[in-house]
């Protein structure tokens, strides 16, 4: 599984990246987490709010930082 965190450099974006990385380790998931910071690349996903979370090319979340419980649910789906 490939997880991408889309966000330029705002506080919420950094928070989402941190929570995602921690949750992936916590859940013993083999998913890779990468951060996409280039706005041109970010816009390719058709989002209007950052930060956003993309799993295997699909936008699953945008404009907010989820709780760990929510994030685990998203990753497991």
């Amino acid at each position: 599984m490939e997880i991408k965190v889309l966000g330029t450099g705002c506080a919420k974006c950094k928070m989402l990246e941190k929570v995602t990385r921690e949750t992936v380790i916590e859940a013993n998931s083999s998913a890779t987490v990468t951060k996409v910071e280039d706005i041109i690349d970010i816009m390719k996903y058709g989002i209007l709010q950052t930060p956003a979370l993309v799993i295997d090319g699909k936008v699953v979340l945008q404009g907010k930082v989820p709780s760990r419980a929510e994030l685990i649910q998203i990753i497991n789906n």
Partner: protein
Amino acid sequence: MANDFPFFKKQSNNWVYTLLLLPLWLVLYLNLQIIADFLIDDLLQLQNGNHLTEALRFFIFETPKVLLLLILIIFLVGIIRSYFTPEKTRKILGNKSLFTGNILASLLGIVTPFCSCSAIPLFLGFVEAGIPLGVTFSFLIAAPMINEVALVLLIGLFGWKVAIIYIGTGLLIAIFAGWILGKLKLERYVADWVYKVQIGQSEEEEKLKFSERIGGGYAAVKEIVGKIWIYILIGIAVGAGAHGYVPEDYLGTLLGRGNWYGVPLAILIGIPMYSNAAGIIPIVSVLIEKGVSLGTALAFMMSVIALSLPEVIILKKVLKWPLIAFFIGIVTSGILVVGFLFNVIM
């Protein structure tokens, strides 16, 4: 985020809790003065009329009042906002003419969830969808300036009249600044790469159940109140400390009603500063306590929230300098007019 509370796990229960909490809210809100008087006079038995006693009474009454109002309004706005996603706003604004578009964009700016960290993707997404530049600006001016937090704090600390004045004039500035920017045909000052960006298809969003929207309301309360309660305590504490005093000092003379340059000076001081509505209102309450006139204080507040250096740095990524200069110039003029107007009327 709603899942942090065990009792929100079952979304269908949201109804029940909300129906139980609302009457509780009302009973508490209507009895705040009685509770404050009971604590001060009967429990602590403080001497009546003493400055410290009255300051304490003000604080004990005012703090829960503002917090209760804040919780209710953020909760309701959280539900309303779940109906107005940026995607929907973009769709609504897509085929509107300039002036109608400006009015709609400013109104939608109030209810659409917005964070300044999303300004760039939002700008690109709007422009790319064919929304006129001026209409996009109306949205970008109204969204941070007019919001539920500003509304509650203004009602709580200065009353309904000031809150309505702030919202009304804020809307007018957003509408007209966007309209003028649109009329000036400044599209050539948008960074060249903006019109070449490939925007991906956004997916159709799923329909939310009403209980999920209520969950969104709780999540909004937790997020926003959790972030700003400290500013509110400070603001009210300062207000309580100054309660009863009307000090005429340096600030009052400099930015008071008598000085014509009070308003422009306040705006100039406000531009490099950056804060959201919650952070700036305590400062505004201090300014007014210190004798700064209302129009000048409102102009300062608008200038801090709507114009800021960090925002200019963000906008610089997508706009060229002439357009940024027009943007700042036009919004500043609008705030200037509002400031002068209220110093004359009030």
